[in-house]
């Protein structure tokens, strides 16, 4: 029976530890709570970690700079490992226990899974998924995101490759809501421009080899290929293309193109990979970058950040502005924040992202992006592009 006794002791110990932790947590004053659903350990963690860190840092920055007209905010950040059920768990926790009215979310799959519920519960949901399906307030009134949508990016990319003289294109993407979301828009645009579209290739988010897909692609021999994955899978795709001697050039969605490519690809990627980035790269000389650099110099001088950091930071800044306006109107709640965000017109983030505009009938934040390319160990901007805000492109 000795083992049972140890077992009991173990239980008591756990209980004591748990209560202590609980006690610690309860001491804080009453800040405005914000739910955070991030991917730190899952398939998109390569880009998700920095984004989450940015949101957490921005929380501190906001609190140090006046908060919401004097009130502090508290970001309850949790990892959901890119699993929809986990996101649903977290959502219920934020809704029922923490009683939040705004959530900083992450992926396309989970944001889409929750969109009906956030509309019913009137909780503003700012996602890192820039899926166009979230832009139509008639369908998803409480969903927001802060930069140019995937579909508009893929349309711009198609226009760009057409200018570059492309005749044949192929779409590569992971078999995931995130990868698949913009593909219909891309294909429609390619058709409109008279580009020949080859068979799609599926490259997983955690792929370490894309040889078979690229061998298949080689038969079609496209001039340009779209990459709809994240940075690690984009680097695998380009590396294998070089290895197999393809002449294809690649243009990547925002999540597949950042500073880490330089290390992952080395010289192989030079002049080979282009990226759509509506957001400024980390450390670029724009006014909005100064507070970020100062903040990090003070708090974590050794940390290395990428464009993901800017994306997360921007999402928090837009939310901050919305909360401030909602508070001024005396409506610090879900519908109030939604209404406040919809008053944003050409909101300037200091050059971090294109000016942001929401309206009650259109949640597309911006319509422009910068095309970057990798050249001689650097990411250099090639061209600023933008597409007209047409109603026919709303919502897909």
């Amino acid at each position, binding site marked *: *029976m000795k083992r049972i006794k140890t077992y009991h002791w173990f239980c008591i110990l756990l209980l004591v530890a748990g209560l202590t932790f609980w006690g610690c947590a309860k001491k804080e004053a009453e800040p405005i709570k914000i739910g955070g659903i991030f991917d*730190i350990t899952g398939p998109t963690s390569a880009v998700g970690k920095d984004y989450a860190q940015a949101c957490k840092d921005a929380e501190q920055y906001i609190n140090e700079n006046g908060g919401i007209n004097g009130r502090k905010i508290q970001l309850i950040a949790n990892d959901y490992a890119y*699993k929809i059920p986990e996101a649903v768990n977290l959502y*219920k926790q934020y*809704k029922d226990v923490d009683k939040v009215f705004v959530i900083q979310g992450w992926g396309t799959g989970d944001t*889409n899974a929750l969109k009906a519920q956030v509309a019913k519960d009137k909780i503003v949901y700012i996602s890192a998924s820039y899926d166009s*399906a979230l832009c139509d307030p008639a369908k998803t009134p409480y969903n927001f995101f802060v930069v140019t949508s995937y579909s508009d990016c893929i349309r711009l990319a198609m226009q760009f490759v057409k200018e570059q003289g492309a005749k044949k294109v192929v779409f590569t993407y992971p*078999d995931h*809501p995130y990868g698949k979301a913009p593909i219909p828009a891309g294909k429609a645009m390619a058709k409109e421009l008279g580009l020949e579209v080859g068979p799609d290739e599926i490259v997983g988010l955690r792929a370490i080899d894309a040889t078979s897909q690229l061998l298949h692609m080689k038969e079609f021999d496209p001039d340009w290929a779209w990459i709809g994955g994240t940075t690690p899978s984009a680097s695998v795709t380009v590396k294998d293309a070089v290895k197999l001697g393809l002449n294809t050039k690649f243009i990547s969605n925002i999540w597949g193109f950042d500073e880490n490519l330089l290390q992952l690809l080395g010289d192989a990627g030079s002049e080979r990979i282009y990226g759509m980035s509506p957001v400024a790269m980390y450390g670029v000389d724009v006014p909005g970058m100064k507070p970020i650099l100062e903040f990090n110099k003070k708090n974590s001088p050794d940390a290395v950040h990428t464009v993901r950091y800017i994306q997360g930071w921007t999402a928090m800044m837009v939310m901050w502005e919305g909360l401030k306006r909602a508070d001024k109107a005396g409506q610090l709640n879900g519908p109030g924040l939604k209404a406040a965000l919809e008053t944003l017109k050409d909101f300037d983030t200091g050059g971090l992202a294109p000016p942001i505009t929401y309206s009650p009938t259109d949640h597309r934040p911006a319509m422009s992006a910068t095309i970057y390319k990798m050249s001689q160990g650097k990411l250099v901007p090639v061209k600023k592009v933008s597409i007209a805000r047409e109603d026919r492109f709303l919502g897909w």
Partner: protein
Amino acid sequence: MPTGLFHSTYQEDEKIFRTVWLKCWMGGLLLFLFIGFPFVAPSLSGVFGFSVQHMANMIGIYIIGAHGLNLLTGFTGQISLGHGAFMGVGAYTSGILFMKAGWPFWLSLPAAGLVTAGVGMIFGVPSLRLRGLYLAIATMAAQFIIGYAMRNWTSLTGGSGGLNVDRPSFFGFTLDTDLHYYYLILILTIVATLFLKNLLRTRTGRAMVAVRDRYLSAEIMGVNLFKYRLLAFGISSFYVGVAGGLFAHYNLVVSDEHFTMWLSIQYLAMVIIGGLGHVLGGIFGTIFMVLLPEVLRIPTEILSNIYPNIFAIFGTLRELVFGLVIILFLIFEPDGLAARWHTIRAYWKLWPFSY
């Protein structure tokens, strides 16, 4: 006055609740689950920091699925790595029948079970020839085939965007809150548990156990191996299908991402940690597997508020601890939680005169 439990008839020996005390305890538990729990849940949520009501609902749904797998793996000795996908079949069937064909909820849910049972039996056919690891690989095929269909049969399943499901209503009463679902799930979980417990006392149940213990002897005794293995796959899939249907109507969205290989393995972990071949095992294992990640989240949340600069590390830490706890558990508790429960009960029964 007898000094112990002495059964003088077979009927007594086979009773589920053998003593008056046990009946009292069960009655108390049911009373608590039906009346007490909904009142306690909100304050418990405040203590733990996650939605206890929601977790209870999820546990209920997964218990039904875990019972299904326990019947197949724990009682009939057939391993399956396809139960995650089968749950998906149930979820999509119920969702599609409800949303697209306009069936009422009380019809679409059993239909989900039946369709899943059919699918499960198809993938169970290899069990006639394959055993152990080979069967595991064969059932894994279900995971890939069904997963692919869920992702790419866009006209039916809505593809990767998922299928949105409306709240179900019974005869004019709409299930609006988590509490409404709680009662529905609780009742179905009790029915599922009682059915499983009773099934094992029947001819069919004994035949299944015989197949597990030594299939050659069972065949010599006249047990039709193929029939009982297939039956086990069918009933097991029915359970998981119903769980899937509930899941769809509870989460209001069905997407292929729910029903991956990971879910199949999670189901296996539930029954193994709970205790293979114990009805209680499915219940304990599910509670453990569903709650552990949530409980581990509490320290990470607090630590990340104290050290915001390195908070990304804590998320990783949680996954590590999760893995570690499961490994430690299997080493120190190889017979599962159900066996531990029996030991503890025996200890208290004789307390303080244990030897």
